[in-house]
C-alpha cells in the first residue's frame, strides 16, 4: 500500500512570530483603551450601580478584544501563508497531524481559567448590584399600554410625567404593570427590569449626576412599544423637594388619602376580595399570626396595638388609607391599591369585612 511521505514541518510558518507579536501589540493597545475608557458603553454612568457594570464591561471588553484578535488575525494569516503553493502538484497535502496534546491542554486550560476568572468577577459585580443601597426613597412604577405612572410615598395621586429623583439618594423602585409585560430600562444607570403584571420586581439606584435621562420600554408590548418612553429627571435634593411639594406631597401619613367613601362597603364582597388579594400575606387571626404582614383579625379592636403600623389611629378611614397607599416597613412592602388593582369600592368592601372580623 503506497504511503505518501510528507516532510514534517520544522517551523510554525513563515512570519509566525512577527504575526504573533503583531497580535500581542494590537491586543495590548485595544485592551489598554478599553480598560481606561471612561465611558466604555458610550453613555455616562449617572448613578449606582452603573460604575460596577462599566467595570465589568471594560474587563470583558479587553478579554474579548484579545480573543477576537487571536482568532481573526491568525485565521487570516494561516489562510494566506498556507495557501496551496503555486508549484504544488495535484497530489499536494498538508501536514498530517491529528492533535498536539500539550497545545490542546493549554488552549483548554487557559480559556477555562479565563472563564473561571470572569465568572468570579461577574459574580462579584452581581453581588455589588444586588447590594446597591435603596430604601431611603421608595417609588413605584406602574406601566400600561403605553406609558408609565409613578407613585411616591405620601402623594395621593400618581405622577404621569417624568420620574423625578433626588441626587445621591438611595432609591428603591418597585415596578409592575397593569396589562402586559413592559420594560423599565434606564440606560445611564445600567438598570433594567421587566414590568410583569401580577409580579412586583425591584430595582435599586442612587443617582449621582443630575440631568435628564430616558426611561425606555424594552419588552414588546403592542403597537405603541416603539414610542413607549419616559424621562428620568435627577435633581438636587432641594429642587426635588420643591417639585414634590408642588405635587401635593405632605408629611402626614395617610393625609393624602382624602375621603374614600366607605359607607357602601359590603362584608361578603370584602371577604371574597380578602381571599384573592390579601390572604397571601395577611391572616384573619390576631396581629401576631403573621404570614408576611400582621394578622388583621383584630385591627380595629386590639389593646396590644393601639396604633396602626404607620402610627395613625385604627379608624376605618386610616385603614382605608393604608390599603390605598401601601406601606413600607421593616417587614416588607405592602403594595398600594393601584398595584393590587383595587378600586375605592373594593377598599370600602375590605374595610367593612375587617370591621366585621374585629367585632367578634
Amino acid at each position: 500500500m503506497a504511503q505518501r511521505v510528507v516532510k514534517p514541518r520544522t517551523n510554525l510558518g513563515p512570519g509566525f512570530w512577527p504575526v504573533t507579536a503583531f497580535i500581542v501589540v494590537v491586543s495590548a493597545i485595544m485592551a489598554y483603551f478599553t480598560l481606561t475608557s471612561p465611558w466604555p458603553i458610550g453613555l455616562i454612568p449617572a448613578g449606582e450601580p452603573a460604575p460596577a457594570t462599566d467595570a465589568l464591561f471594560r474587563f470583558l471588553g479587553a478579554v474579548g478584544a484579545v480573543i477576537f484578535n487571536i482568532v481573526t488575525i491568525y485565521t487570516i494569516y494561516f489562510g494566506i501563508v498556507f495557501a496551496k503553493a503555486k508549484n504544488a502538484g495535484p497530489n499536494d497535502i498538508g501536514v498530517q497531524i491529528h492533535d498536539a496534546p500539550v497545545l490542546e491542554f493549554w488552549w483548554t486550560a487557559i480559556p477555562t481559567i479565563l472563564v473561571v476568572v470572569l465568572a468570579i468577577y461577574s459574580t462579584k459585580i452581581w453581588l455589588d448590584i444586588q447590594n446597591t443601597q435603596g430604601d431611603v426613597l421608595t417609588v413605584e412604577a406602574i406601566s400600561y399600554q403605553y406609558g408609565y405612572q409613578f407613585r411616591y410615598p405620601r402623594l395621593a395621586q400618581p405622577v404621569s410625567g417624568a420620574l423625578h429623583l433626588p441626587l445621591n439618594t438611595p432609591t428603591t423602585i418597585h415596578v409592575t404593570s397593569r396589562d402586559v409585560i413592559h420594560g423599565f430600562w434606564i440606560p445611564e444607570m445600567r438598570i433594567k427590569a421587566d414590568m410583569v403584571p401580577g409580579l412586583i420586581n425591584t430595582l435599586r439606584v442612587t443617582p449621582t449626576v443630575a440631568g435628564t435621562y430616558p426611561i425606555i420600554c424594552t419588552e414588546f408590548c403592542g403597537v405603541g412599544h416603539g414610542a413607549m418612553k419616559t424621562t428620568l429627571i435627577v435633581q438636587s435634593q432641594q429642587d426635588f423637594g420643591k417639585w414634590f411639594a408642588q405635587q401635593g406631597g405632605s408629611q402626614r401619613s395617610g393625609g393624602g388619602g382624602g375621603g374614600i367613601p366607605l359607607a357602601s362597603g359590603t362584608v361578603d364582597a370584602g371577604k371574597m376580595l380578602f381571599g384573592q388579594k390579601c390572604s397571601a400575606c395577611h391572616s384573619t387571626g390576631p396581629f401576631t399570626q403573621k404570614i408576611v404582614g400582621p394578622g388583621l383579625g383584630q385591627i380595629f379592636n386590639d389593646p396590644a396595638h393601639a396604633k396602626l403600623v404607620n402610627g395613625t389611629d385604627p379608624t376605618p378611614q386610616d385603614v382605608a388609607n393604608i390599603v390605598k397607599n401601601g406601606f413600607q416597613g421593616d417587614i416588607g412592602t405592602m403594595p398600594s391599591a393601584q398595584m393590587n388593582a383595587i378600586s375605592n369600592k373594593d377598599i370600602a368592601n375590605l374595610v367593612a369585612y375587617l370591621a366585621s372580623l374585629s367585632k367578634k
Partner: protein
Amino acid sequence: MSVSIAKQGYSLGHGHDEDAHEQVIYQETRDMRLLGFVLFLCSDVVLFSAFIFAYIYLRTTVAPAWPPIVGGHQLPRLDTAFATVNSVVLFGSGVTMHYALENFKHAKLRGFNAFMGLTIVLGTMFLLGQGYEYAHAQIGGWSGNIFGASFFTLTGMHGFHVFAGVVYLLVLWYQASRGVYTKERYFGLTAGTLYWHFVDVIWVGLFFLFYLW
C-alpha cells in the same frame, strides 16, 4: 420484496444461509424499530413534563393558596377515593396487557385473546371513569381557574393518549387475529405493550400530583 445481494460474493463471514440472513435482518430492523419507539415515548414524556412543570410552578410559586380561592370560596379537593378505584382499573389493565404478551410469546392464543380483550375493556372503563370524574368535579371547569386548567389539560392529554392506546390495541388485536405476528416475530405487540405501560407510568405521576399532593 427485496433483492438480496448477499449471495453475490461479498461476504463478511456470516454464512450464506438465506433463512439465517432473513433472521438477522428481522432482528436488526426490530432493534431499530424498538429504539425508535422508545425515543418516541421519551419525547412524549417531555410533553407531559412541560405541563407538569407548569402545574407545579403555578401551584407552588404563583397561587396564593391551593386549591385556589375563587369567588371568595376555596375550591374543594378532587375525589381521591373514586380516582383510586379508577387507577386500579388502569394499572390492572397494565397487568393484563403484560400477560397478554406473555401468552402470545408462548403461542397460547386463547390466553392472549382473553387478556387482550380484558385490557381493552379495562382501558375503556378507565376512560368512562374519567368522564364521570370530569362531569362531577367541582373545581370550576376547564377555563375557570388554574386548577381546572392544569387538571383538565393534563388528565385530558393523558385520556387522549389512553383513547389512542385503546384504538392502537384494537388494531394490534385485529392484526394478530389475521396472523401478522408469530411467536418469534411480534414487534407490534411489544410496542403496544410498551405504549400501554407508558400510559400507566404517566398516570402514576398525575395521580400523585393531583390527588395525593
